């Protein structure tokens, strides 16, 4: 019996989706392990004084969510996350649910090794109010199919 395995590394393919609804404890944990001491991440009055609608979810935490999304898909697909770049587009506020998604934009040969190819993936985070808080690109390296 010969099974046909569909190559997931094609332009337009989804890399899946994860959701996160960080609560105050998650932000405390993340702030503590990373020494993120800026008051906007735990002091509501101060965050409002800087013009934020609420406690601000750390930018690096959002980066970690995108890393989890891309790394998870990479592992399932036999690849490895090698690069992630992102920019913050809107304010991410505590109490919202964040959906992280992505899709393959292009697949190119790895210029450093012809045995591998690179899946260039658009990635993003949208909150449940329709705000795109973050977008960027993940690059996943995978062995070229024989």
């Amino acid at each position, binding site marked *: 019996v010969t099974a046909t395995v569909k190559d997931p590394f094609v332009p337009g393919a989804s890399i899946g989706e994860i959701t*996160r609804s960080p609560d105050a404890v998650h932000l405390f944990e993340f702030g503590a392990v990373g020494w*993120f001491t800026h008051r*906007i991440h735990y002091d509501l009055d101060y965050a409002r004084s800087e013009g934020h609608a609420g406690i601000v979810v750390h930018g*690096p935490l959002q980066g*970690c969510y995108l890393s989890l999304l891309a790394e998870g898909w990479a592992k399932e697909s036999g690849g490895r996350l090698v690069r992630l*770049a992102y920019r913050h587009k*809107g304010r991410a506020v505590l109490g919202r649910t964040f959906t992280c998604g992505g899709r393959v934009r292009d697949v190119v040969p790895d210029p450093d090794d012809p045995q591998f190819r690179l899946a260039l993936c658009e990635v993003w985070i949208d909150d449940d109010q329709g705000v795109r808080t973050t977008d960027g690109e993940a690059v996943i390296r995978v062995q070229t199919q024989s």
Partner: protein
Amino acid sequence: VSEETMEDVVHDSVASTPEAEARVSQPVRVRALDVARFASAIEATDPQCFGESGDGVVAPPGFHFTFGQALFPPGSDYQRLPDGRPAHTGGDASTQALAAGTEIEFFEPFRADDEVVITERLLSVTRKTTRVGEGEFKTWERLYKRSTGELLVRELHSVFFHQPDRA
């Protein structure tokens, strides 16, 4: 550091920063407990994070963010701004900081018992005007290496420091 769109950028001036800005941390050992705490904070569920895969304790991507304190450990020269930010992150008490963008290259994962050395260099300082005001756009490079020399992560991190509009 909060987030803001940096789309509407006007280049006023560009200044490069001298190599003298580079800092090198003392070696920091990765503890299994720190990996587990980080995994909990980001809700990572990979058994490798908890040493349950038979391949030791392997940190999820993003673990390098936990080394922020290593370059500037609290001590005699450690200063904090009124908004809670460590003073070494740049700016001063009159400025607000907006995280503008991050680029991370992953070479190898961090593992429990790795000994890590972090090097930080301010790559550029650019004066810009955005819709939130005029200020300085700073980009740092951080290299995370094992003390034996292997590069684990390279990160470029940009922050926009500006005078707040409190009108």
